[in-house]
């Protein structure tokens, strides 16, 4: 029963969806503060390469190395995000252009590939990677075993993140302030909330999450590094935030859906079921999603209907002299 297509698809959907989930949670935090971060793909790639580099270079226990790798990946993502924050919050540059530029700069033909190739990370198996860590007896339970208990630690960590972020947004003062900054920076500013600080912090934390998402790919899913390994996951993550109506719990559902979609082709292939040209559609998905995102964020009416933060994409200038 645990080998049935449905169970395998859901289980691998959860695993493949986890990088998407991390990245979309990060994007959600940035967008809730009013900053559209189109640099997620680049931040994921940099996180992926830096995480993998840590695992290759640091000689310590597996657990310590992996945690350190995650921290370094998150830090790398945050550093990239700091560039974006400086451009769009301090210099008030166009958010779409800045984000795209950052992704191109860090992307498959840029910084991340340069780092990976220069540090000789290609074609090497990971020295450590995340494995399922609950007892085998639990993993063998029918249906829920592989789906819920057969996952690696990052999956469980992502669940904690979803809960924490959901509570943060809906129940805490900081979350309320954050939402106010994204909806009406002028009102927030009047009430004494530092708009610039909130935007910086959440873009940086968002970048850290993207880095974490990238490292999830190189440390848990395909424990190796190749150039452009995220294959557009960042774009899907951005689209996910929109389809999840800017709510973390729906990001989780969406991430697993797209994760399962990603797992579909190899699973069918393994069972000798031919998909034919549909595979092409799956490969085109990130790009179609990108177009969808750009259409949605540039149409005011659609944005309002979906519930986008009202100040998303708009730099804040206090009317003062």
């Amino acid at each position, binding site marked *: 029963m645990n080998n049935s297509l449905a169970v395998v698809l859901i289980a691998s959907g959860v695993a493949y969806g986890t990088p998407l989930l991390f990245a979309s949670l990060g994007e959600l935090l940035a967008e809730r503060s009013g900053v559209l971060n189109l640099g997620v793909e680049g931040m994921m790639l940099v996180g992926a390469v830096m995480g993998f580099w840590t695992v290759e270079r640091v000689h310590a226990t597996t657990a310590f190395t992996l945690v350190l790798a995650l921290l370094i990946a998150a830090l790398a993502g945050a550093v990239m995000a700091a560039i974006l924050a400086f451009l769009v919050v301090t210099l008030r540059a166009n958010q779409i252009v800045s984000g795209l530029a950052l992704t191109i700069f860090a992307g498959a033909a840029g910084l991340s590939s340069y780092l990976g190739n220069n540090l000789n990370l290609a074609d090497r198996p990971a020295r450590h990677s995340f494995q399922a860590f609950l007892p085998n007896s639990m993993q063998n339970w029918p249906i829920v075993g592989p789906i819920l208990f057969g996952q690696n630690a990052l999956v469980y960590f992502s669940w904690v993140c979803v809960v924490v972020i959901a509570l943060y947004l809906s129940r*805490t*003062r*900081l979350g*309320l302030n954050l939402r106010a900054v994204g909806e*009406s920076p002028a009102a927030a500013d009047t*009430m*004494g909330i530092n708009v610039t600080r909130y935007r910086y912090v959440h873009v940086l934390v968002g970048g850290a999450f993207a880095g974490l998402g990238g490292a999830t790919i190189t440390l848990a899913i395909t424990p190796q590094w190749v150039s452009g390994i995220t294959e557009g996951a960042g774009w899907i993550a951005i689209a996910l935030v929109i389809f999840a109506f800017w709510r973390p719990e729906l990001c989780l559902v969406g991430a697993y859906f797209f994760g399962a979609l990603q797992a579909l082709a190899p699973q069918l292939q393994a069972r000798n079921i031919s998909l034919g040209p549909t595979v092409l559609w799956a490969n085109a998905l990130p790009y179609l999603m990108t177009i969808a995102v750009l259409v949605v964020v540039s149409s005011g009416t659609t944005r309002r209907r979906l519930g986008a933060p009202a100040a998303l994409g708009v730099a804040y200038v206090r009317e003062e002299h």
Partner: protein
Amino acid sequence: MAQAAAPAIETIGITKRFPGTVANDRVDFSAVPGEVHALLGENGAGKTTLSNVLTGLYRPDEGEVRLFGEPVSFTCPRDAIDAGVCMVHQHFRLVERFTVAENLVLGDRRGAGRHFLIDPRAVEGQVRELGERYRLPVDSRARIWQLSVGEQQRVAILNALYQNARVLFLDEPTAVLTPDEADTLFETLRQMAAEGRTVIFISHKLHEVMAVSDRVTVLRDGRVVGTVKTSEATPQSLTALMVGHDLQTVTRVPAASVREETVLDVEDLWADGDRGVPAVKGVSLRVRAGEIVAIAGVAGNGQRELADSITGLRPHTRGEMRVGGAALKNGDPRAAFDAGVRYVPEDRLGTGVAPSLSIAWNLALRAYRHLSRGPLLRLRRMRTDAEQAIQAYDIKSSGPAMQAANLSGGNLQKLVIAREFSGAMKLLVAASPTRGLDVSAVETVHEHLLDAAATGGGVLLISEDLDEILALNDRVVVMYEGEVSEVEDRQSVEEIGLRMAGATPSESPEPADPAPSPSPTA
């Protein structure tokens, strides 16, 4: 009034400069606890600048602010709020998607909503109590966007009260209210003053200032020209202070130029607003040649959508329009222009002109087909045409090459009028044509509207300014929630006011009768 006590708020020699202008010039101003103090002045006189200085949004270049005798220096609005100085802005600074309670919790630093884990319900009791005490009823669980503009204003005032405001500034608070709502607001303000708070009421409307204030400080060109007790002032004396000379108001001889020929005939018109819900709901109306039909109403009742539909900017979903007898093509601005429809839009800088283009180019936007030879523009002709227009319409500028964005409001409006009055005009749609203009520019614009009617054009005047409507109209139609109804007595403030608040006409069985009632009389 505790005249002997220290003033609640006081400025000494406040000067605030902006590039090219001095917005406040050595302003001395003081208000005592327990009074409603009006700040009166024309647009651009420096009222808003002064209040922004006093509430922490601007920092003065020179001078001192004292609060209850103590010198203070606010670096941001929050400093002012913490000191008990709050401002209700013209555009309320509320988070639209939040509930009323969430908005109050947002700024709460000492009340029931200050905790790290937020509980908007904790403040509900207090909202209800404040609402009852000050006659500001509002549902604390409603989201701001669901509330009418008047209700949103109540929330903004409640927020200030919740923050324990000792000094409250209100910037043109009645601009968005019906006359009835304004009266209720005045009672609230009086009550707040009676409790020892200081209310500073910013306005350029004389009758409101006379109605609500204890004292008036008049500003002109950034300077204080006088502070008087309201009881010792008259509208005439205040006007003289405000503008420096007595005003002659434009008067309209009703129906003087009205002819029988219909220029605009709208039948059962429906159009959607920006959010996709109907904003114009079955409007029928008729404008005759030489007639000024005024559409009164609080902004946001579908006036903008109606004007957009008539001028072709917004496709209508149902109904028909004829200009000079010929049906108008739906949603085609050029067809409307060719049919003789001219438009002076509400947003004169954004919609009325292309701000970064020069005067000459802006004038050519309508007439470019006459100003071109093949694909090429005749630049010299454009220049001379522009020079003539600048002369004819008295546009104060440095010449045809000056950027439209650098014109003052009044001259910008003259530019729009100069462009729109070109060619064969049949119908002029003017939306809030004098909003934000100073008195002399208002006069000029009114003269142009009267001119348009006198030369046989029909004028559809959409305005929120009752004085303007009373001065110019041949007929008055009130627009409320997308529907129109004709007012019986075109000079009755009471009737127009009631209709603006949504009262249905008690007598006339066909409120939106498109057929003109027998010649309107005064």
